[in-house]
């Protein structure tokens, strides 16, 4: 059955509950799990997927011996937006090469937050490229670590080659309100994009 995009008629019990998801991407050690933890209503959990690195087109019998299995973990949290709408937040695995192995990881997401450690800009290059390649709407959040230099946002935008229409915000991933504000920036960005899309129809 396909309920995509439809409000549920109030069924028995909590029949009408729906979900949305937001991905938190970024290089290794940029604070993805920290952000999930700070903003989640529940104690963050981990879910796993066993990925088989073999081409789907391989002949089953021939392919078997060559398969390598990797377990990839996703840390996630949940925010109850209202009685019937849940926001799930997923921290992506640190190694970006797993993102395309996990089929549909970004599919169905409202959008993504790409976390950047300003002391190691290059660690999030790949994440930004992947968002662009997979056509996932995103905002960039500069996770301000205590010993980070105070870079002007525009300087970092230039260094990371982020287009002018994509918001770049500073945050402290350890802080709930600050992480919430990044989510708000993402949703506002999605609304702006929608408005542009509606105008051009």
């Amino acid at each position, binding site marked *: 059955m396909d309920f995509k995009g439809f409000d549920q008629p109030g069924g028995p019990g909590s029949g009408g509950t729906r979900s949305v998801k937001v991905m938190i991407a970024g290089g290794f050690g940029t604070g993805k799990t920290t952000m999930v933890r700070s903003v989640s209503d529940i104690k963050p959990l981990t879910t796993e997927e066993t990925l088989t690195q073999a081409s789907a087109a391989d002949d089953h019998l021939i392919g078997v011996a060559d398969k390598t299995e990797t377990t990839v973990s996703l840390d996630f949290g949940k925010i109850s937006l209202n009685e019937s*709408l849940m926001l*799930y937040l997923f921290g992506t695995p640190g190694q970006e090469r797993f993102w395309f192995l996990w089929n549909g990881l970004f599919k169905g997401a409202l959008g993504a937050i790409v976390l950047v450690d300003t002391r190691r800009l290059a660690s999030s290059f790949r994440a930004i490229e992947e968002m662009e390649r997979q056509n996932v709407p995103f905002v960039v959040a500069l996770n301000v670590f205590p010993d980070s230099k105070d870079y002007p946002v525009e300087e970092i935008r230039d260094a990371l080659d982020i287009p002018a229409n994509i918001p770049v915000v500073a945050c402290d991933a350890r802080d709930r309100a600050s992480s919430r504000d990044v989510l708000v920036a993402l949703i506002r960005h999605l609304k702006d994009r*929608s408005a542009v899309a509606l105008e051009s129809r």
Partner: protein
Amino acid sequence: MSAPRRSTNPSGLERYYVLTKGRSGPGGSASSLDVATLIVSRTTPVPGMQHEHEEILRRCRDPLSVAELGAHLGLPFNILAVLLTDLLEAGRVEARDPIPAHSAGRGPDLALLEEVLSGLQRL
């Protein structure tokens, strides 16, 4: 068939093989399952049911995401997806995919974004 309800050595790949009766990938209706898909029970457990199926029905009286279910049951996504396919095909659970910002052919869902925004602003 009188298979034991639980494997005597329920660890790792062997356990998963037993749980899924050797089936590996989600196919059919489960191929669209997402980590944020909500699962809701439509029936109560019946006697003789596989333990894990029973457990899923019990935990999903209130809607629970596939990711939460996997974390609580200690099962990886692909194994859980096989078990959920059984229940979906038997009509014992209902699956609701996460709502995307854009539904195909319907354009951007501004009402949804507003709802998310006001929920976040109340935090």
